[in-house]
């Protein structure tokens, strides 16, 4: 991994040189919040503010997107394909938990059938991550094996240092992005400063939740019928807000929409396993009857099913689900409880 120094001017030039740059921007409706939005100039970006309300997911899997459009003709149906090639874009100052999430979701999107809509956007996007400094008590990335300085999913990772940034170039795409910037070797002082910043950042989240232990996925699978699930979701409203803000929740619905004329579109929309309708079968039978079962699915999918199928935890510890939950459901706390149960269970079976 090469480390380079980028001045603010370098970065400003980089923003100016690209047609579409996304970065955290102060929310119009609430100055305390930020959103990932297109920017024109580096000064539009909000640095060191809160974690953006929504993750980067929507730039790759929009809340609603057209899969195809169709037209009824006398001869039958004509289908118009949607292009799978996307406009090039740069995501600047991505939070490491959001960047990592994309790589995690890549796995399912490439599972035997390749989702060209997702990968079209992934390939056209260069991600510049930034050492996280906006963590709060809801963050638990280190429990998942990531951290505020995790390079995962970023093409370039920036760490603020005196006068600019230390840039770690992680991928060839990152290299290409910085090709036009002056190649300045990072000074030893800058490298040391960055290392201190990373350590400090790591310390801030380390104690928010216990690390996921080995064998946790297997424990969850074995304990699918554990009584703990029955009362875990009492305060959950089943609203699915958590899925909307989650950087890794990727479940979707496919629907057709038409008007009275002969044209229409097929769309893919975000969906959530927390709603009753999600698994409701045509016969009226629902395999996941109640909120306890639905919440169990959420936890199982993230911490057992996905690890089992893809070797990855489907969570990056961004903490958004706890921040938005109207019922006060708290993922780090729930995980802590489950981990304690798992350890106790393993202790007992070991005796």
């Amino acid at each position, binding site marked *: 991994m090469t480390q380079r120094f980028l001045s603010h001017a370098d970065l400003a030039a980089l923003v100016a040189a690209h047609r579409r740059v996304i970065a955290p921007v102060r929310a119009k409706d609430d100055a305390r919040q930020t959103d990932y939005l297109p920017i024109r100039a580096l000064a539009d970006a909000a640095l060191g503010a809160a974690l953006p309300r929504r993750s980067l997911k929507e730039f790759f899997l929009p809340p609603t997107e057209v899969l195809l459009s169709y037209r009824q003709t006398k001869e039958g149906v004509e*289908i118009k394909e*949607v292009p799978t090639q996307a406009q090039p874009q740069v995501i600047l100052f991505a939070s490491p938990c959001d960047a990592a999430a994309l790589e995690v979701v890549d796995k399912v999107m490439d599972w035997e059938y390749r989702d060209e809509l997702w990968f079209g956007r992934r390939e056209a996007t260069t991600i510049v991550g930034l050492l996280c400094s906006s963590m709060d008590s809801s963050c638990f990335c280190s429990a998942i094996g990531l951290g505020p300085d995790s390079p995962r999913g970023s093409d370039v990772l920036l760490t603020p240092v005196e006068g600019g940034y230390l840039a770690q170039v992680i991928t060839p795409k990152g290299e290409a992005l910085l090709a036009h910037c002056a190649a300045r070797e990072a000074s030893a002082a800058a490298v040391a400063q960055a290392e201190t910043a990373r350590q400090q950042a790591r310390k801030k989240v380390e104690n928010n939740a216990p690390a996921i232990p080995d064998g946790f996925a297997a424990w969850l699978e074995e304990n699918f019928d554990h009584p703990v699930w029955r009362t875990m979701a009492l305060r959950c409203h089943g609203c699915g807000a958590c899925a909307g803000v989650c950087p890794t929740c990727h479940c*979707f*619905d496919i629907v057709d929409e038409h008007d009275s004329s002969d044209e229409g579109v097929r769309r893919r929309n975000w969906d959530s*396993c927390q709603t009753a309708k999600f698994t409701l079968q045509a016969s009226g039978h629902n*395999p996941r009857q109640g909120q306890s079962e639905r919440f169990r699915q959420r936890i199982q999918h993230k911490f057992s099913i996905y690890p089992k199928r893809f070797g990855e935890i489907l969570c990056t510890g961004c903490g958004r689900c706890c921040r938005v939950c109207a019922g006060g459901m708290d993922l780090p706390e729930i995980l802590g409880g489950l981990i304690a149960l798992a350890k106790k269970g393993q202790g007992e079976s070991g005796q």
Partner: protein
Amino acid sequence: MNIYQPHLMRIVEITDETVDTRTLKLEFKAPAMAREFQFCAGQFGEYSAFGEGESTFCIASSPTRQGYIECSFKSTGKVTQALRRLGVGDTVGFRGPYGNHFPIEEMKGHSVVFIAGGIGLAPVRCAIWNVLDLRDQYKDVTIVYGARTVGDLVYKRELEEWSRRADLRLCLAVDPGGETPDWKGEVARIPTAVEKAVTTAEDTYAVICGPPIMIKFTLPVLAKLGFAAERIYTTLENRMKCGLGKCGRCNIGATYVCKDGPVFTAAEMGRMPQEF
């Protein structure tokens, strides 16, 4: 062409099976697809009525009959009602084939018992015709099929045809109260009918499909007859959207019905979390 884009198919024949169940016979519009399309018994597809959406059904026709596919569905929701409004010559979308299939090859040289309830005959029918079209490669073939009432039995013409064939045993049953005065079959629920019709599990595979409650009560009967759980095959139909392992709703624990299924052995189902 992205993975969510369907192939266009033309409806060439419509058969009403019951008051609310209909079979569509479909042909690919693109000649290349019509020539090259291959599938295995038990696989499923996503059928679309344009403007209304997609619905998941198994392919009900046999892979031995090339050039067309058939699907049978009950009109319950938005898509199935829209499919029902279509006529011969109209266009539907099809994505597939998806999922795994029945062990048609593995079963060669052995006997097969097919057990189905209600519209559960559709996926089983696909396997039945596959076996019947290669009849000399299998030993005994037994079909136990039942429905709530005589009117709910599907594929009546084929039941008629099977009943006349000497190379298979057909046992038809309707639930008590569902019989008509001229009903000649059994008046019994499926588990009872299976007990009567099937005498041995020796060298035999079982293929079973029907409502969850029927499967629940038939499996113990098969076990009592001596069927190993690895030799009992069934097919699950969870709610699906993509059929490709992405949309995240058909899983039972870590098992994705669309990718690991829809065909499972009773042994596999026993190992899954009981969240059907």
